[in-house]
């Protein structure tokens, strides 16, 4: 999503991993860990000011 934001023209794109995010069910959690699934906080700005 970081790259999509830059491709769209956004500037100052920043991404921070959200600590503590996890799926509640163990089966989903295990699959998510295997694929490196993370929650992130993304910020960006539309240029022009």
């Amino acid at each position: 999503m970081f790259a999509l934001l830059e491709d769209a023209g956004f500037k100052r794109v920043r991404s921070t991993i959200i600590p503590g995010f996890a799926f509640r069910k163990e089966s989903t959690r295990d699959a998510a860990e295997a694929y490196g699934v993370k929650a992130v906080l993304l910020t960006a700005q539309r240029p022009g000011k």
Partner: protein
Amino acid sequence: MTDVAPPHAEEQGPLEGVIKGEVLRMYQEVAEHPEGEFHFYHGRRAAEMFGYATDWLDRAPGGAVASFAGVGNPHLRSRLQPGEMVLDLGSGAGLDSIIAAWQVGPAGRVSGVDLNPEMRAKAQAHAREAGLANVEFRDGRMEDIPVPDQAIDVVISNGVINLSFRKRHVIGELFRVLGAGGRIAITDIVSAKPLSQSIVSDPKLWAS
């Protein structure tokens, strides 16, 4: 990090309707039965886990807190100012919109957009319960946001864009609705590895 759905997911048109139906069903379940158990943490426990201020959670209508289903806290970086126009993409039961409405004050305005009619009805009721006149909830899809060009100062969103097959298009919509210098503060889910086709094609996993 890549998106949860690989780029080729945007070409899987026939599956999109099935996924959308499962997403609607899952979040309708959260709206109607917030006491239920889901793949994700939700409600006050989740909001506290993501650092929502206790006084916000105490002040917000209980139903908005109970049906909270975000994956983080966009308010940590949204830097909302009085008078700003805010779009809450995928507004759910309204907690993030209500918190945003408090921050922008009566001179500002918050538009929540959600495709789930049960969630929109709940969000509207919660905003009324909170006594807010500067927030509205609209029917709409993130791929076709019902907002004019450059009408928004800040977009917030919480755990929603990962549910779309057409993320590039959604991001383009965010760019379109923001005015010059407009900002986004989005929490969402990404993966370090491309997901397998079996996962991408499973509506229940998309909705989880």
